[in-house]
C-alpha cells in the first residue's frame, strides 16, 4: 500500500517534469521560428552538444515571419513542413495544427484540381495561380506561387500565398462604381440631347408662328390703317408688342440652353476692349439718357469672348435700365486682383483671380433679393415698369460659373446696385 502510494507520487513528479520539458521545447521551437535563437545546447551522455542554426537563416526566418504574404514549405505530397503565422491567419486555423497537415485540406473543393496540376508542374518550373482557400466557414481568394527548393538532404516546395481579398473587393467596388457611373453618364447624355433638341426645335418652331403674328399684324396696320379705329390700332399694337416679347423670351431661353451644351472656345480676352465695343452698341441709349460711364483698370483674362461680352452687356444694360427716374445713370466699372476665389479674399497684386465691379447709382433692390435675381425668370419689377425677359442675369450667372467664377449682387433700395464678377485669370 505504502509502496503503491510512493509509486503514484513519483509518476506524478515524472509527469510534471515531462510537462515542463514539453513546455520548454515548445518555447524553444517558437523562439527558433521567430529567429530569436541562433544555437541550441543539448545535454547528452557524452557531454553538451551545440547545435547552431545557420546564421544566414536568421534574417530569412525573421523576414518570412514579418512579411505580409503567407509562406509555407511542403513536401511532394503536399504535407506542410513549415508555415508562417500569416498563412494561419488566412485560413483561420491554429498555427501548431497546420504544420504536419496537408495543404490539400485548406484548398477549396472546386480548386483542388487546379492545385493538383500546379503542384505537379511546379517541380520543374516555378508556377503561380489564383484559387480559393478555406477560411473557417468562409473562403479567401489568393494567388499562390510555388517553386521547388533543392535542399541538401531532400527537396521541398516553397509556397507564397498572396491574400487577394482586399484587392478583389476593391476591384469589385471599382467595377460597381464604374457601372454606376456609366449608367449616370448615359442618362445624362440622353437628357442633355433631349434638352438640346427640345430647345432647338421649340425655338425654331415657336418662332415661326410668332413671326407670322408680327408680320400679319403689321400688315393689317399698314394696309387697313384708314379702316381701323384708334382702339383697333391699339389692340393690334398690343399683339405686335406681345409677340415681340415672346420672341425675345424664346431667343433668350434658346441661348440659355445652348450655354450648357456647347464646348466653348477659350482665348485671351481684353475686357477693356470688349467694354469699348459694348459702349458703342449702347451709344444711342447712353446719349439719350446722358449716362456717364467711368472705366478704370480692367484685366486681360482667359475666356470665351462672346460669352463674357454677353455678361457685361447684361449687367450694363441693367444698370442703364434701372436708373433713377429723371437722373442720368452713372456707372462705375473697375477691377482688382484677388488672392483666392472668394469675395472675402484679400486683394493681391498678380493674384490668380480678378474681381470686376460694375456699380450704378440707380434704384437698387432690397438685399434679400441678392441671390434670387440670378435665377431664371426672376423679375423684381413688373414688365410694364421695366422691360426684360428675366433670363439675362441667369445667363450671366451661368456663363460666369462656366468660367469657374462667381457672381454676386449687392444693393439697398434707392442706393444703387453693385454687380461683382469674380473670374480666374487663367482657365485650365
Amino acid at each position: 500500500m505504502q509502496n503503491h502510494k510512493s509509486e503514484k507520487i513519483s509518476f506524478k513528479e515524472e509527469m510534471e517534469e515531462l510537462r515542463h520539458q514539453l513546455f520548454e521545447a515548445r518555447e524553444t521551437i517558437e523562439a527558433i521560428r521567430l529567429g530569436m535563437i541562433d544555437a541550441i545546447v543539448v545535454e547528452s551522455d557524452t557531454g553538451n552538444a551545440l547545435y547552431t542554426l545557420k546564421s544566414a537563416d536568421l534574417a530569412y526566418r525573421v523576414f518570412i515571419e514579418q512579411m505580409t504574404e503567407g509562406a509555407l514549405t511542403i513536401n511532394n505530397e503536399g504535407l506542410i513542413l513549415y508555415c508562417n503565422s500569416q498563412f494561419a491567419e488566412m485560413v483561420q486555423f491554429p498555427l501548431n495544427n497546420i504544420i504536419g497537415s496537408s495543404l490539400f485540406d485548406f484548398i477549396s473543393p472546386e480548386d483542388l484540381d487546379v492545385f493538383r496540376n500546379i503542384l505537379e508542374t511546379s517541380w520543374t518550373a516555378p508556377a503561380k495561380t489564383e484559387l480559393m482557400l478555406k477560411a473557417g466557414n468562409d473562403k479567401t481568394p489568393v494567388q499562390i506561387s510555388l517553386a521547388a527548393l533543392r535542399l541538401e538532404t531532400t527537396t521541398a516546395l516553397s509556397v507564397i500565398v498572396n491574400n487577394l481579398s482586399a484587392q478583389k473587393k476593391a476591384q469589385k467596388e471599382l467595377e460597381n462604381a464604374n457601372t454606376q457611373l456609366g449608367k449616370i453618364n448615359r442618362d445624362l447624355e440622353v437628357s442633355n440631347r433631349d434638352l438640346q433638341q427640345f430647345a432647338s426645335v421649340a425655338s425654331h418652331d415657336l418662332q415661326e408662328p410668332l413671326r407670322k403674328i408680327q408680320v400679319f399684324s403689321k400688315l393689317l396696320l399698314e394696309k387697313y390703317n384708314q379702316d381701323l379705329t384708334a382702339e383697333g390700332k391699339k389692340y393690334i399694337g398690343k399683339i405686335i408688342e406681345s409677340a415681340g416679347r415672346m420672341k425675345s423670351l424664346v431667343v433668350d431661353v434658346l441661348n440659355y440652353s445652348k450655354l450648357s451644351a456647347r464646348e466653348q472656345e477659350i482665348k485671351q480676352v481684353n475686357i477693356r476692349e470688349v467694354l469699348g465695343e459694348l459702349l458703342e452698341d449702347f451709344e444711342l441709349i447712353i446719349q439719350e439718357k446722358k449716362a456717364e460711364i467711368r472705366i478704370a483698370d480692367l484685366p486681360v483674362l482667359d475666356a470665351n469672348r462672346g460669352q463674357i461680352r454677353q455678361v457685361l452687356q447684361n449687367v450694363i444694360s441693367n444698370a442703364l435700365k434701372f436708373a433713377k427716374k429723371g437722373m442720368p445713370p452713372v456707372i462705375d466699372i473697375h477691377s482688382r486682383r484677388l488672392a483666392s476665389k472668394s469675395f472675402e479674399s484679400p486683394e493681391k497684386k498678380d493674384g490668380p483671380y480678378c474681381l470686376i465691379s460694375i456699380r450704378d447709382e440707380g434704384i437698387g433692390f432690397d438685399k434679400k433679393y441678392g441671390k434670387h435675381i440670378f435665377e431664371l425668370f426672376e423679375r423684381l419689377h413688373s414688365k410694364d415698369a421695366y422691360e426684360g425677359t428675366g433670363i439675362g442675369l441667369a445667363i450671366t450667372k451661368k456663363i460666369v460659373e462656366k468660367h469657374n467664377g462667381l457672381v454676386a449682387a449687392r444693393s439697398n433700395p434707392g442706393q444703387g446696385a453693385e454687380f461683382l464678377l469674380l473670374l480666374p485669370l487663367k482657365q485650365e
Partner: protein
Amino acid sequence: MRKKILLAEDDPDDQELFFEFLSDRTDIDLLPPVENGEVLLERLRQASGNIDLPDAIILDQNMPKCNGLQTLQILKSSGYHAHIPVMIYSTYIDSSLVKLGLSSGAVLVMDKPSDTEGYHSLIDELLKVLD
C-alpha cells in the same frame, strides 16, 4: 436692268408675304417661287440658257427634303449654277448657321424680315452684292 430673283420657300404665307411687300419694286422681277431645294434644282436644270436663269436666289433654311444649306452646297458644287449669288434667310439665325452659310458660298445669311422695311432692306442688301 431689273434683277430676276428666285425664292425657294416652302411656307405659302411667306411666299405670299414676299410678293405682298416686294412686287411693286421696279428694280427687281420676282420669278415664280419654288417650294423646296429639290424643285429649285429641277427648275434650274430646265432653264434654257441665261434668259430663264435668276440673277440671285433666296433660300429658306428650313425646307423639307433639301434645306437651304444642302441646296446651297449642291448649287455651288454643280458648276453650271455655281456663279449665281445665293442668300439664305431663316426665322432663326445663329452664329453657326451664318458661319456655315458663308463658308459654303452664300453671299448673305439673314433673318426673315417681319415688316415692309425689313423686306426692302433685305433686297437692298442683296442688290448691293449683285452690283
